[in-house]
């Protein structure tokens, strides 16, 4: 296919960013917003066109006779050439997952653009300060995210990886006069930066051995069987497999360098996808405007980590260890986040932790994916869950945004019983909850079920663990739902008029996303996405046993939530008092932030930086100054020589002359 459309997909948001960034101040708020939205709309259309073209055109470039979907590089422009082999190029990479991501990103992004037209103004319709800047940043983010998913090589991915980090920094810190927002943005950037350090080193290791950044060379799909599951196209001088199995690749601390590379790269993913222990930035990131949270911190950027692992999945397959690590990290994170989500007051925090937990689901399912189980069901499942989760989590966030916009507070304590006042929000939010809880027939059910069965294939332990997490998910979501919409009558503070549904710009996205969440489950996802491109009908692997069990768990959890939170009662209190420690730990997110504070401030800042600075000023600089001081001292010392007494002068003269002679004599004889 021609490169025009892909180029436009990337170019339009970039242009919008520059244009709105430079000229935004000159134009009216509304105009800027509409321009941004229109731009995103165009991108949406183009992206859909591209994706459908890829999936359905049947173009031999995209799908082989065997019917397996192929990787296709639309264009690839050399950007920076290190050596004749090691090249960073910017390109456009089409394969099932990137096409899928195109759809997801553009959809959510467009929804958010639209939504923000309503959200970013107060009740009197006055636009917020920096409205144009907001849209500029949104465009920047969309550009970076799109660039990330269509990366043709791992370094391009890294480049846009950094860019999304930066734009998320800018958007979290959008309310830059609020100190909390500023520090949150700083935290987000630095934590992810730290993770990216691992990513970078991983890339360096990988590229040193393979001599290439290209995904096509690194991960070309296998033709048949396990024998050559991993083979680099022969254009690469030394095939990756060969390299890593050759003795040239040493073991390092008991693991092969490939494992190290993969783990380090996964570290980058952990940072972006807020896996433990690098998750601490995501809850704080909720300081940003809610649409931003919906776009960046629920739907798109945070799944970049999952996307990265999926992208390099064939490499990960080579190293069992790395996949195990992925699984373990994912499983722990999922449980941890779910626990914490049960004890949060701030509704956005609850959603944030549920996001972490859900992404952990995807990670786990990647970790447990093996070609031998249902052609790598887990891979497909995680992509599927990524897709559905993006939709319903965005829905939930936007709903929360609507609530916050109406109430003016993030805490459910200020809400309670809003169902009568805000029906649209109520229903859409409910749909979102059902979807995430995994109730048939909503989208979440299918994707989560796939994941669970993949876990089941892998090991029963993981299966039980993850089902438990699934139950927790259902519980905390409905806890949230009830506490917002039921619990007790909403009391309107005097002077305020009753909360109501927001403008159509805000409601429309909710409705659309709700619809998608309802139907998305029935997409035969396996037809499009599979770990090796061979389409298959996943209903064939649909395990009704697993499905019913997970459904049962979810329902039970929901019932529990209903009992506890539908009507105002003392059960939660009792619960809390029964296990105060548990509540505290969950409420304080297991004190991770405090730990980090301690490490960064006490140890690094006060323990390293300050002493170093002192050392520099006093020791190093002191030495330099001491030279000067010593010189002065010396001149002070020899001052008496110049006593002004002639006879003294002559003494020194004669002694000098005699010494001169005498010493030489001694040396000679």
């Amino acid at each position: 296919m021609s490169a025009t459309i892909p180029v436009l997909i990337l170019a339009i948001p970039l242009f919008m960013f520059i244009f709105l960034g430079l000229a935004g101040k000159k134009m009216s708020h509304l105009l800027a917003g509409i321009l941004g939205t229109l731009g995103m709309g165009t991108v949406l259309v183009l992206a859909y066109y591209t994706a459908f073209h890829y999936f359905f055109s049947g173009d031999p470039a995209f799908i082989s006779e065997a019917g397996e979907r192929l990787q296709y590089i639309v264009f690839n422009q050399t950007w920076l050439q290190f050596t004749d082999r090691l090249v960073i190029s910017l390109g456009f990479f089409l394969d099932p997952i990137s096409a899928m991501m195109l759809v997801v990103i553009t959809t959510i992004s467009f929804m958010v653009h639209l939504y923000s037209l309503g959200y970013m103004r107060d009740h009197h319709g006055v636009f917020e300060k920096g409205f144009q800047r907001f849209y500029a940043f949104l465009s920047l983010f969309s550009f970076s995210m799109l660039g990330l998913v269509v990366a043709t090589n791992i370094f391009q991915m890294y480049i846009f990886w950094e860019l999304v980090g930066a734009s998320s920094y800018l958007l979290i810190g959008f309310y830059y006069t609020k100190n909390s927002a500023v520090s949150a943005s700083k935290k987000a950037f630095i934590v992810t930066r730290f993770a990216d350090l691992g990513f970078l080193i991983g890339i360096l290791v990988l590229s040193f051995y393979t001599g290439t950044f290209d995904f096509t060379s690194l991960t070309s799909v296998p033709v048949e069987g396990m024998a050559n599951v991993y083979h680099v196209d022969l254009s690469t001088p030394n095939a990756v497999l060969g390299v890593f199995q050759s003795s040239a690749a040493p073991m390092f601390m008991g693991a092969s360098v490939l494992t190290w590379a993969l783990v380090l790269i996964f570290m980058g993913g952990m940072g972006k996808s807020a896996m433990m222990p690098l998750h601490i930035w995501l809850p704080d990131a909720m300081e940003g405007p809610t649409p931003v949270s919906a776009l960046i911190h629920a739907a798109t950027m945070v799944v970049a980590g999952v996307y990265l692992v999926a992208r390099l999945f064939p490499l990960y397959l080579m190293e069992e260890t790395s996949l195990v690590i992925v699984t373990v990290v994912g499983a722990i994170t999922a449980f941890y986040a779910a626990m914490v989500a049960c004890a949060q007051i701030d509704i956005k925090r609850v959603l944030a932790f549920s996001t972490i937990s859900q992404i952990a689901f995807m990670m786990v399912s990647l970790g447990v994916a093996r070609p031998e189980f249902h052609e790598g069901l887990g891979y497909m499942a995680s992509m599927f869950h990524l897709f559905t989760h993006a939709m319903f989590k965005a829905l939930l966030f936007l709903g929360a945004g609507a609530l916050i916009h109406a109430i003016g507070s993030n805490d459910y304590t200020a809400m309670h019983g809003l169902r009568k006042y805000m029906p649209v929000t109520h229903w859409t939010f409910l749909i979102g909850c059902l979807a995430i809880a995994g109730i048939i027939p909503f989208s979440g059910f299918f994707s989560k079920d796939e994941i669970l069965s993949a876990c089941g294939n892998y090991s029963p332990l993981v299966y039980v663990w993850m089902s438990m997490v699934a139950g927790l998910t259902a519980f905390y979501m409905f806890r949230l739902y009830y506490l917002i919409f039921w619990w007790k009558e909403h009391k309107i503070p005097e002077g305020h008029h009753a909360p109501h549904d927001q403008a159509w710009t805000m409601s429309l996205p909710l409705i659309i996303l709700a619809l998608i969440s309802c139907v998305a489950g029935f997409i035969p996802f396996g037809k499009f996405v599979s770990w090796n491109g061979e389409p298959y009908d996943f209903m064939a692997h649909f395990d009704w046993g697993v499905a019913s069990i997970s459904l049962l768990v979810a329902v039970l959890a929901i019932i529990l939530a209903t009992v506890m939170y539908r009507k105002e009662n003392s059960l939660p209190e009792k619960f809390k008092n029964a296990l105060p420690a548990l509540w505290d730990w969950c409420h304080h997110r297991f004190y991770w932030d405090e730990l980090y504070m301690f490490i960064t401030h006490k140890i690094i800042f006060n323990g390293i930086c300050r002493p170093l600075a002192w050392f520099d000023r006093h020791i190093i600089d002191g030495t330099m100054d001491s030279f000067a001081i010593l010189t002065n001292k010396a001149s002070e010392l020899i001052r008496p020589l110049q006593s002004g007494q002639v006879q003294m002068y002559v003494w020194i003269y004669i002694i000098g002359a005699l010494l001169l002679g005498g010493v030489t004599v001694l040396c000679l004889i």
Partner: protein
Amino acid sequence: MFTNILIYFVVIPLVMLGLLALCRDVKQIRAVAVVGSLGLIGLSVYVLLEYLGIRAAGNEDPMLFVDSWSWFAPLNIHLAVGVDGISIAMLLLSSIIVFAGSFASWTIAQPKEFFLWLILLSTGVFGFFISIDLFTMFMFYEVALIPMYLLIGVWGSGNKNYSAMKLTLMLMGGSAFLMLGLIGIYYHSAPEGAPLTWNLLEIVDNAAISHGWQSFLFPMTFVGFGVLGAMFPFHTWSPDGHASAPTAVSMLHAGVLMKLGGYGCFRVAIYTMPQAAHELSWIFLILTGISVVYGAFCACVKTDLKYINAYSSVSHCGLVLFAILMLNETAMTGAIMQMLSHGLMTALFFALIGMIYGRTHTREITQMGGMMQILPYLSVCYVIAGMASLGLPGLSGFVAEMTIFVGSFKAGMADYLAGDGSLRLVFTIIACCSIVITAVYILRVVGKLLFGPVYDNHHRSLTDATWWERLSTATLIVCVACIGCFPNFFNNLINFTFKPAIFSVLGIN
């Protein structure tokens, strides 16, 4: 003599000096400064194009526009000029920064004297970059050093006497070692019987410096230039110096002068004494590796904007020397790009700091806050500069650092696999860590200075950038973005032309 284009890099500043001496009022002075620096930019661009043209024609000489006029015949001292991609890059950088600098000092006190010294300084800089004769190189080097004393002393702020004296003396101390090293090189520049020479190319061709002498002269030269490159134990002049220097001088000094160090280390020390470079590089690797993280850590706790940037300069320039010492093509390319990028962005930083200081009369970040609401233009520029310096893709810093890391990691792994110890590898990893620390201190400053509520209500009355300030900063930002977006152009410019040098350096390992 005047048929050679390069000589005009010295002629133009000299003419400017003459005109400045004649100037009567500030308007004329500004006119001379602007026209002259524009002329320099034009000249360097012209040379760049010419150069690319000749290279495209398949010319493989190590240097182009080579020309040499005998000066002190008995010592075989020539006024020898010639450029390759690196020098051209440096020339571009210098001319741009001179341009920006003259706008940044638009309303300086005693403009006549100020610009006289400034232009004299840039004469030295340009002369240094075009000359390939060790003597003339050294002469121009020192010409560039001395005006700093008066520029800081007279127009500086704070503890200026101390800083100016310290800076001058430390740099002169460096050049003392340097002079010894250069004369030593001269006396061993040719095999027995052949005429001795100061000419770099001939020295490299002769490759006559015996092994023992190399291991004595290499440290001399490297330290000599390293002092100006703010190498670890010898960097302390830079924080004080920058802190007290006036804006344009900080720009020129951090932007260009510190590059003289890196350039010299590469062009003289490593270029002429590769063997010693190979054997002794480990010492300096440790030192420079330290200065990379050390500078960054120190920057984390400073509260004076200029100190913060001075230390970050220590860190970044340390990275330059670090990469040069990797003795591998990619890393060296990265080093040169880092010189470019650091030159531009640090100049931008100092320009902005100067402009903010000129308004608030304080550089303490604890005394300021919420500038974004008051000085939006300057603040946005500051954010951009910060992003460039913490290596955001699309801006120059990222390209340079990545090139360096890829190259030095390659060198490190090569050593490691060859069983030559893992020093390079370890220090590469350590250097990589600096990108995180950089992020920390940059964001700390940005958060404290620009964001948050307004700290001091008196600041609310401040006015945003004037047109000349906008021009000065915009120029630099555009250049930073250019390098960041089209790195391969510069990469090829440096890399391709610098193969001969690389071969001669790596020829012996």
